[in-house]
């Protein structure tokens, strides 16, 4: 077929060269196996360390290292890596007497849920990971959970809170974090318990499944706690031009203002509220206040703002894991990364901790055995109680409320874990 003179010999040669090199390259790719994602320095470390280990366990994840949730994705990755390094420094994972080194492989899904699925598939079928760690965000987690289910690959995730992930009847996905409907629970209950108590609430939410779930449950909880919902609106996903709804909310004069969205919007809302002179009795956000960026960007304006939080360093858990207490985790994290962890980091580390517990309990690397062990987990970690309901989500860990006070985060609700009283009401912008 290639004998006829339809291809000029130079073209033929170059095409043949391309084909040959391509086959070689792909053969190489298949033969050498997955490369570790560790940077060169610790590659030598882990090479030396693996001398004492009986094998390597590869954990993979598609995380948003770039794109709209790049910041949160970075926190997730840092959480995973801290777990890996701490575990390896303490003998790795013990499977029936054999010690396994933990290795990680991450791909950047660019905050694109479709890419997350493709990359998860690649991790499972080409890179041959042993276990799957969750991505950041509800949408990517949803997509990846389908991939995990199709491939019967156990996945634990820490950053997808929508209950819709867990209402699909999947068996292989588990979430260590509290579900979406709890994000605003503490905030609303706290608002109802203050004096003067809040009686009206405005809810502004981004139009994505997670945020809408949080907002809808906030609406129901408000009514249940005696707050009247005077304003409820959804804005297009990722919109940061929110002066129109804030002006509308201001007109309705709510006492409590809640936003369910992302970091970028929380920043925009606070600033635009200040400009428009919108001073409710309290601001509450589902995402934003717990991330250090919130305060470094807003500076003094961040004070008095409340956020629903999955975890804070002030909590007092006595964990049955390598980190033991929230305060210790905070210190270790700070030392490693030179910034304090947000709850996204903590829950990512908790994912690794849960995996380790389950694998060690199962005493085997078989996917089904590990999956069953995960389903039966029930222990206290530095992150809180880790136990999954029959759908796979951790309904047993409570959420708390944080507030920025004088440039520092304080845990203010529930009262039994609070380190400070909530500052209530928030002074109007004009008098700050």
């Amino acid at each position, binding site marked *: 077929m290639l004998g006829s003179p339809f291809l000029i010999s130079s073209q033929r040669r170059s095409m043949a060269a391309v084909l040959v090199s391509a086959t070689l390259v792909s053969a190489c790719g298949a033969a050498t196996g997955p490369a570790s994602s560790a940077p060169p320095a610790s590659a030598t470390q882990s090479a030396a360390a693996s001398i004492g280990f009986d094998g390597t366990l590869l954990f993979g994840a598609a995380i948003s*290292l770039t794109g709209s949730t790049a910041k949160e994705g970075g926190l997730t990755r840092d959480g995973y890596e801290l777990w890996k390094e701490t575990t390896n420094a303490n003998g790795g994972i013990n499977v029936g007497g054999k010690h396994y080194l933990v290795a990680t492989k991450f791909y950047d899904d*660019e905050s694109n849920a479709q890419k997350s699925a493709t990359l998860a598939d690649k991790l499972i079928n080409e890179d041959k990971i042993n276990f799957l760690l969750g991505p950041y965000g509800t949408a990517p987690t949803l997509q990846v959970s389908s991939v995990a289910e199709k491939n019967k690959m156990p996945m634990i995730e820490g950053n997808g809170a929508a209950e819709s992930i867990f209402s699909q009847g999947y068996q292989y996905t588990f979430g260590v974090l509290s579900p979406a409907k709890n994000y605003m629970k503490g905030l609303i209950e706290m608002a109802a318990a203050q004096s003067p108590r809040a009686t009206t609430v405005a809810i502004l939410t981004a139009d994505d499944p997670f945020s809408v779930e949080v907002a809808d449950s906030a609406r129901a909880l408000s009514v249940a706690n005696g707050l009247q919902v005077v304003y409820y609106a959804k804005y297009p996903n990722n919109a940061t031009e929110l002066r129109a709804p804030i002006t509308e909310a201001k007109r309705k004069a709510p006492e409590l203002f809640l936003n369910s969205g992302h970091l970028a919007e929380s920043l925009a809302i606070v600033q635009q509220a200040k400009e428009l002179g919108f001073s409710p009795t309290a601001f509450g956000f589902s995402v934003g206040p717990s991330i250090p960026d919130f305060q470094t960007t807003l500076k003094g304006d961040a004070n008095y703002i409340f956020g629903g939080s999955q975890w804070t360093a002030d909590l007092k858990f006595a964990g049955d894991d390598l980190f033991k207490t929230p305060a210790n985790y905070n210190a270790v994290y700070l030392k490693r990364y030179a910034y304090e962890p947000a709850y996204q980091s903590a829950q990512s580390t908790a994912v690794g901790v849960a995996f380790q517990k389950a694998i060690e309990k199962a005493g085997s690397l078989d996917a089904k055995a590990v999956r069953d062990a995960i389903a039966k987990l029930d222990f206290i970690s530095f992150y809180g109680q880790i136990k999954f309901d029959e759908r796979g989500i951790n309904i047993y860990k409570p959420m708390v409320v944080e507030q920025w006070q004088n440039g520092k985060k304080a845990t203010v609700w529930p009262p039994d874990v609070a380190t400070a009283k909530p500052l209530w009401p928030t002074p109007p912008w004009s008098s700050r």
Partner: protein
Amino acid sequence: MNLAVLCAGLLLASVAARPQSRAAVRRPATVALLLLMLVAPLLSTSTGILFDALTAMCIAYGWNVIGGFTGYASFGNVAYLGLGAFVAAGFMSRQPGHLGLPWFVGIPLAVGIVSLVALAIGLAVLRLRGHYFSIATLGVAIAMPEFINWDFAFGPDGLIPNFFGGGRPLNFPLVPDLQIPGATLGADRYLFYYLGLLTAVAALATTALLSRSKFGYALVAIRENEEAAEAMGVNTTVMKSFAYVLSAALAALGGSVIGFKLTNMTTEAEALFSTTNNLQMIVIALIGGTGTLWGPWIGAFILFAIQEALRTLSSSDVFLQWQAVVFSFLIIVVVLFLPRGLMQFLRGRERFSWRVFLRNLTANRV
């Protein structure tokens, strides 16, 4: 192994594409190509990237009809890609309130409905020309995810309640692996791959029919000079609309199959409706050669072969992070140095040499 398949496919497609080769050479090449694609799952354990290439190709063929043949550069076909996926999900889902139709009913139904929607939208946007048309279609792409989220029409109390999930994620049924005596045929590796191949072949066949038909010639006439075409008796309105609808139909076909494999439908801008998807179909057609029969096939295979080669060569963090930069740079390079795509080499008597690139660069200067 996937890389080898892509390169071999590329080679065969190039052979099949050359207009001056004898049919006795091109036909076997086409057949060989099809055979190669049919046996690919047996050669490779994970056909994911081949699936991506084939469905992307189908969508690029769609774009090729309106952008390549007709000369109306649509920047909004990703809207139909996404809508196709959602409509298919709406019909095929087994969640409460949905019909749970099988894929061979659900997908054609989705394609049909999206075509009607495209007809309606096309009647408005096709009145515009050039830049105006392009940006209007860009607007369609931005508006479509919000249309799907529109509570008034699709919310829990809407006209067609919860058809798209009503704020809760909609999903396709999970396809189980096929058990035959002696082996398990993985759904991802086999079923979805063959669905993807089906969409690509359908798109190729449609374009082949089109390029030889009166309709196809009418489109080219419109591209070259719309007024003259109108004067010669071509009903440009009907032709343009049909081309636009066809491009939307192919986009919906590819999109619904992609959605089916993906399983979960969310409208976040960074999922099915992403700028990447939007741009990819155009870049594929451009690299291969717009307005040609084999252009999108060649373009898709090259693009995915390059991506796969880069990923195989290095999966270091830093390298992956710079991939987006490399991709954007690639777009600029292709536009400047190879605006007529690779078909320029395959169809003309041009030899492959660096001078051709230089000539392309300066051919359109001020």
